[in-house]
């Protein structure tokens, strides 16, 4: 069976991308020309009701050309890598640029630099194909069947060749691979969930995570309804990641400068508990660090929140230049850590809690008010009442109405950072933690 290897259709190589980009550069009449490559080959085995419902494999190669005459710019892209199609793409980009008004924020491509070399393409993931994905899916389904649990989930793997090149000599090429597993175990009305994303498909820990989801679903039976009010909460890593993903998305520097950011005026000030630090750690083996960004900037190790103090914003190049920021930080491999002594496990957090709500995950988190970063969302796939250090019952799901800028002002207890991912966030390392007050505003019927 076909694997993601150098057999046909092999991924676009560095030399091939260089050839394609030079083809564009030599024919371009623009002042500046940037060529971007994304050659993506991915497959997913999807299952529900304990059987495979979808089994797919797709390959899409895209080449994008951006050109500029002075500040006039245009972008065109194609999925056809033949010489004629690429020439047509360049012509379309040039036609747009010639007719577009000058952009006062336009900047030439970044200067060439040596991008960090990272281990972004694990061979075991690059080589994984439908057979491996089906094998892993069957493993998860098998465990669930043995426990009379219904399984729904995915196993996926992807390999991508990414490149960026410009007429000034800028050139970056990188192969990236990732694998994903997620499982919802259904025990009647109750559900339990677990998920993993990793550069290595061998690191998905299918059995461990499947058994965790099964245990959650079993424990979730006979859920009680509790009043919606303020509770101490124990947030598992996926739930922490869900809230922090929105905090990170709101760090846009231009909004900050224009006064339309929840952080306006707070750069250099404390915004969360003084023990919390948020870093980008692109070299961490458990994160999805990259060598460079789509714009052709190097990915960097950087501190965004240092002991609760906001240190960085997410800059576009124009805003960075206007603000005098020379190195634009990236945040594709976030790690949230807490200073001080942590406990070893979520179970220890439970043991230390007199009364509170244990939240496995949040779902459909959306901003309510961008000014104070008020968010809403639902608990999902495992919500429990903890009393006197033990999980005493499952509870029906709550809607929260809370700003992470308020909720994370004070932490009661925490673990070391753990791998976290959910269906609406990228991969992060975050602790599980206990927050003394989270506002649940309503409940649902299950």
């Amino acid at each position: 069976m076909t694997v993601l290897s150098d057999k046909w259709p092999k991924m676009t190589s560095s030399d091939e991308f260089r050839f394609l980009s030079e083809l564009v550069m030599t024919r371009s009449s623009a002042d500046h020309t940037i060529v971007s490559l994304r050659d993506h080959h991915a497959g997913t085995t999807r299952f529900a009701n304990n059987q495979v419902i979808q089994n797919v494999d797709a390959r899409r190669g895209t080449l994008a050309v951006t050109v500029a005459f002075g500040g006039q710019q245009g972008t065109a892209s194609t999925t056809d890598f033949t010489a004629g199609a690429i020439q047509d793409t360049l012509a379309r980009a040039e036609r747009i640029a010639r007719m577009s008004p000058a952009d006062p924020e336009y900047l030439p491509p970044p200067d060439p630099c040596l991008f960090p070399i990272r281990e972004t393409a694990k061979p075991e993931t690059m080589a994984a194909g439908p057979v491996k994905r089906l094998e892993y899916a069957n493993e998860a389904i098998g465990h669930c069947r043995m426990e009379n649990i219904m399984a729904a989930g995915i196993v996926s793997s992807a390999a991508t060749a990414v490149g960026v090149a410009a007429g000034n000599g800028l050139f970056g090429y990188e192969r990236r691979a990732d694998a994903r597993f997620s499982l919802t175990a259904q025990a009647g009305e109750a559900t339990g969930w677990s998920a993993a994303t990793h550069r290595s498909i061998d690191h998905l820990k299918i059995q461990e995570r499947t058994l965790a989801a099964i245990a959650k679903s079993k424990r979730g039976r006979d859920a009680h309804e509790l009043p919606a009010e303020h509770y101490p909460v124990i947030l598992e890593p996926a739930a922490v990641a869900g809230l922090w993903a929105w905090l990170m998305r709101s760090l846009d520097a231009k909004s900050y400068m224009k006064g339309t950011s929840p952080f306006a005026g707070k750069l250099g000030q404390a915004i969360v508990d003084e023990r919390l630090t948020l870093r980008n750690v692109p070299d961490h083996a458990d994160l999805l660090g990259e060598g460079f960004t789509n714009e052709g900037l190097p990915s960097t190790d950087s501190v965004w929140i240092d002991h609760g103090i906001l240190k960085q914003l997410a800059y576009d190049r124009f805003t960075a230049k206007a603000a005098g920021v020379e190195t634009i930080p990236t945040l594709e491999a976030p790690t949230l850590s807490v200073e001080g002594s942590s406990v070893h496990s979520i179970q220890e957090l439970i043991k230390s809690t007199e009364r509170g709500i244990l939240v496995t995950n949040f779902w459909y988190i959306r901003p309510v008010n961008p000014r104070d970063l008020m968010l809403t969302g639902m608990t999902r796939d495992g919500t429990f009442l903890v009393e006197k250090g033990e999980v005493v019952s499952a509870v029906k799901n709550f809607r929260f109405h809370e700003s992470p800028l308020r909720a994370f002002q004070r932490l009661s207890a925490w673990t070391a950072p753990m791998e976290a991912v959910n269906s609406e966030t990228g991969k992060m390392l975050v602790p599980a933690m206990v927050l003394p007050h989270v506002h649940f505003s309503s409940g649902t019927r299950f």
Partner: protein
Amino acid sequence: MNTPTWDEFAELALKRIARSGAEYADIRIQDSSTEHIEGEDRRIASIRDLHDQGFGVRVLYHGAWGFAASSILSLEEVPRVADLAVEIAKGSASVALEKVRLAPEPVHRDRVVTPYRLDPFSVPLEKKTDLLLNTMEVLQRQSGIARSSASLWARRDRKLFVSTEGTHLEFDLLAGQGDCTATALHEGRFASRSFNTPHLRKGFELIEEADLHREASRVADQAIEKVKAPAVDTGQYDLVLDPEHLSLTIHESCGHPSELDRALGYEANYAGTSFLTTEKRGNFRYGSRHVNLVADNTEPETLAATGYDDDGVACQRWDIIRHGIFVGYCTNREVAPKIGESRSCGSNRADGWGNVPIVRIANIGLEPGEATRDQLIADVKRGIYIEGHGSYSIDQRRYNFQFGGDAFWLIENGRRTHMLREVIYHGITPEFWNSCDGVADRSFRRRYGFITCGKGQPGQSGWMTHAAAPARFRQVQVIRGEEGS
């Protein structure tokens, strides 16, 4: 040698698959062009002209699916992908418990073309960028407006669908949209107000008819009024919801729960399941007698009215909620037989050649009633009139929802008075729809389209249109969407 035609590629793939012993296969070859012009703060921030071509092959082998797709349309790649789809289907079949059985559908041979007056891809670029720059100028002319944006979007999909059953369908579909937004600052607060044309299958006439300049002036005025407006007091209010706002409420609280694949558990790991479980069909009171929600994939200009879906099933019109009772689902050929339906209602769509089609929400709309909008408002002692989209969130079975909006007006003693800010309402879906006691008449009916409806793993964007006339809901819980509430 001449490049083979799309028909020749399709024949190459399907003949090869037929030899494998598969009981069914189809191929979709698609070439999509998207033009997206985005303006921000009085500048054109980006103009993108994106071409995306490829093909996807779907194979049903011994009752199990396989799908493979590629952006390389060549004599080497088409057989490789066809073979891969067969191999994947064989793998699926090796572990299948229940075999997929497709609901029958007549063989169709047709060509579907979106009618239009002005091709958006032929309108001079300067005309479009001038329109956006002038629109942003109107927005920011108002003192108090800190930021502005405006954009135009157009998409053309040329597609060929061929199945081993003999169905042969050609499509040349068009869609477009335009919008603008103003953000006002006042005493450290900021608030935005937007105007959106609906996403519709029309040409550039959609944009010309919308008159962005006129709307920009109104939007800027209302952004300033909104940021200075008092925050709402928490409590129970009667709500009168405008069609654009209702389009999202319908989408989330009726559209998604009426997808049969969700009700059957296919989406349990991601988008979720549905409280509209199969035993409720025909007997569950979803809403009041005023609530008639009809799926209509035949209405011209709407996004899901593509003639045929990606199962090759002809588009249809059917009831989802009739006089408040839940009666129908959105289905495809795979899931329709599971509830005893003899035919799919034709709601199986993929977001392009690279993804497998899945059940998607149809063009579900709220049928008009008999009142005027003023009559709905006149019978409200203390209420809120809500326009447009804001915050939205709903649980994975679609019971507990929470919505904001883009603009809010207090209704007192039957009159719409001043604007409010920070209005958020929440409820439980059937309780909410049972509180509906009036819908405005057909003259107030408007249509709004969605192109970013997320579902499926790998994720796909679904397209559909939701039409409504303003409707009134009694005693809905409203909270304030800011800290301290």
